[in-house]
């Protein structure tokens, strides 16, 4: 099945399944194909493509509805295998992956997609476990939403991930100063100023900040930040990361008691937020 990205009528596309897919699942898809075609809203030819990997047809539908304001182009895959294939073949702009697929562990799906593609991955999970989040983020997932999710939250995160992926390339090559509110960060000159006043960061604080900024909008696990700042050979002082972050916040955050630039993902890691 040809899957050109510019097909304007392709408001809902079905990803090819390997042999042996159950008939009821396909039937369900056929029915919803017809309802999807009734959706008369215009679809932009270059609209972003989102791939939803979920074995529950109802949740796929809910996700598609939730992303109504993000994009109208949604691919669906009912299991991990098809999902991994579609992620590399259809070249989506975002993958929404539900855990608890019948054929593959979520961590493995993340890892396999990440081997072939840098597409942002948002994970949906019924469990609220920090360990699971850490494992998924370390395996290459970019964000994490707990079921039952808020439509607005999922849409916001989807938008943020798509935008981040698109601007990442441009931002890393330009190397220009980053402005967050009254804060100006010059990544080349390694200088940070607020309202024109130069701030003094220790080398480690600077490294932490630039690591977070390089992946702005993406949650980095404690381990990922630590590896980037100290390198793998260090073992012990990982725990001091949190103290350094607190000190860094006192310097750059307008209100360190309510951080808005470096966000804590409880039990998981930190994320730099630029969109203000």
């Amino acid at each position, binding site marked *: 099945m040809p899957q050109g990205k510019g097909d304007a009528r392709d408001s809902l596309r079905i990803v090819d399944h390997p042999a042996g897919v159950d008939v009821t699942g396909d039937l369900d898809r056929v029915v919803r194909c017809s309802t999807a075609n009734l959706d008369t809203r215009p679809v932009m030819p270059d609209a972003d493509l989102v791939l939803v990997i979920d074995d*529950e047809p*109802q*949740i796929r*539908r*809910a*996700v598609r*509805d*939730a992303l*109504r304001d993000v994009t109208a182009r949604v691919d669906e895959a009912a299991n991990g295998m098809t999902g991994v294939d579609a992620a590399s073949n259809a070249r989506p702009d975002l993958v929404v992956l539900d855990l*608890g697929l019948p054929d593959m562990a979520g961590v493995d799906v993340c890892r396999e997609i990440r081997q072939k593609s840098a597409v942002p991955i948002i994970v*949906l999970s*019924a*469990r*609220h476990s*920090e360990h699971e989040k850490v494992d998924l983020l370390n395996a290459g997932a970019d964000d994490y939403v707990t*079921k*039952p*999710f*808020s*439509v*607005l939250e*999922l849409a916001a995160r989807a938008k943020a991930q798509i935008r981040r992926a698109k601007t990442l390339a441009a931002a890393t090559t330009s190397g220009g100063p980053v402005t967050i509110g009254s804060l100006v960060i010059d990544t080349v000159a390694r200088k940070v100023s607020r309202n024109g006043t130069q701030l003094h960061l*220790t*080398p*480690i*604080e600077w490294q932490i900040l630039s690591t977070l900024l390089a992946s702005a909008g993406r949650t980095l696990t404690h381990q990922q930040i630590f590896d980037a700042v*100290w390198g793998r050979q260090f073992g*012990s*002082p990982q*725990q*001091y990361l*949190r*103290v*350094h*972050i*607190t*000190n860094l*916040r*006192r310097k750059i955050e307008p209100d*360190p*008691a*309510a*951080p808005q630039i470096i*966000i*804590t993902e*409880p*039990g*998981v890691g930190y994320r730099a937020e630029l969109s203000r």
Partner: protein
Amino acid sequence: MMQARDVIDQVHVILVYLLLVLGASTSGERLLAITLSVLGFMSTAYFFQPPYGSIADGKPLDFVALVAFLATAIVATHLLTRAQTEAREAEARAVEIQSLAKLGSETLSAGRAADALARIAEVIQTTLGMSECSIMSWDEASGFRAYAGASAGHADSDDMLLGVLERAAPAWVRASGEIVSGPSGEHDAAALSQGEPIQKIVIPLTVQGRVVGVLRLSNLSPVQLDLAKRRFLDAISYYAALAVDRVRLVAEAEHAEALREADRLKDIVLASVSHDLRTPLTTIKALAQSEALQGNRSAAAIEEQADRLTRLVSDLLDLSRLKGGGFAATPELNTAEDLVGAAVRQTRGLFGDRPVRAIIDLDSPALVGYFDFAQSLRIIVNLLENAARYSPPAQPIELSAMREGDMLVFSVADRGPGVDEGDAAHIFEPFYRARSAAPDTGRAGLGLSIAKTLAEMQGGTVKYARRPGGGSIFSLLLPATEVGVEALEQSA
């Protein structure tokens, strides 16, 4: 006789008599054998030893030999009869041991432990020839329970058989650990041991010093229990005690197994509740919210109720974790500021316009502690939600962090009505809801009990205090620690 005296030597005569005596003693008759010995001695002395015709006159030397003959005969008789008695006893004991061993193996391998008790009662009854025998097990929970052997001849009704006094006897025996026996069952421990005829007897059954039940025997007329039977009773009552104990252990094991099964089932149900309810809830919430965003008010109500169901489901899961020890905390080095910041961020917008005012001393070095960040955040968010729920909308909520001794103290202060004296002692119990609380908050009432459990797992606690000037202060205490400047610089 005169002729024979010349032909037969005195020694031959003695040997013939000795044979007769030994023959008599093998027959088991000690009296006959001794009589024969004495007769033999006297006739040999009289007839075969010169001067003939008298027993002891003028026979100094040979008489000694005759006396030796008499002594030999008597001793031999004694030894033989004793050996025979012992052989008979040994045989009886062998039979006894054999029957006990058989009974032991039978009872301990009986399919149901209760069957084994009935079987033992039956064996005791037939062996001792009593008309009725029953074994009564006893435990705290269910009191006495009787296991009767086959009763010979009477209706098997305890109440008909036993008078008031006798019905009390088992309890007395159990409590005292002493035997009750006698013609009618009154306390008379001596009657049994003295071998007097008895009609009723109640014996305590003891395992490792614990009385696990009693053995009750009765007969229509008084019977005398000889030593062998008393010994048998002694041995078999030990088996009976073991069997009673086994009945108890089997029942306990079955009960524990049933509990385990129920617990396992509960876990499975809760796990599937978690997964199976969340999937439809996700769909309902997402679709309803999408509709609600288009202005559909019914959809907004559906979404609200889906949220409420979700909270109840997670409360249920928390309850199962609370009981099953499913909560885990991994304390790590964290800063108080980070925790306060995360709590402020997580609750932003949840309480309408009401601000959460964070109070932190930014001039001193950052406060550090050793705690589980995610679990501690749950606690603080829970305390903040409670404060928002129970205090007037216009009043701000304050969240402060400070160090007191070797603890970090996170305090959530509101200007609500506070907690009544009577409620204050119970607010940390699961499902407790203060009398003044809103009747329907859509929560199971687990928040504070879970908060406290989570805090205690990290070496901290949660406390309540009335706030001066009105309101409540809920405090989370967590272990504080220090980070040396050098250590921090070394890591930099």
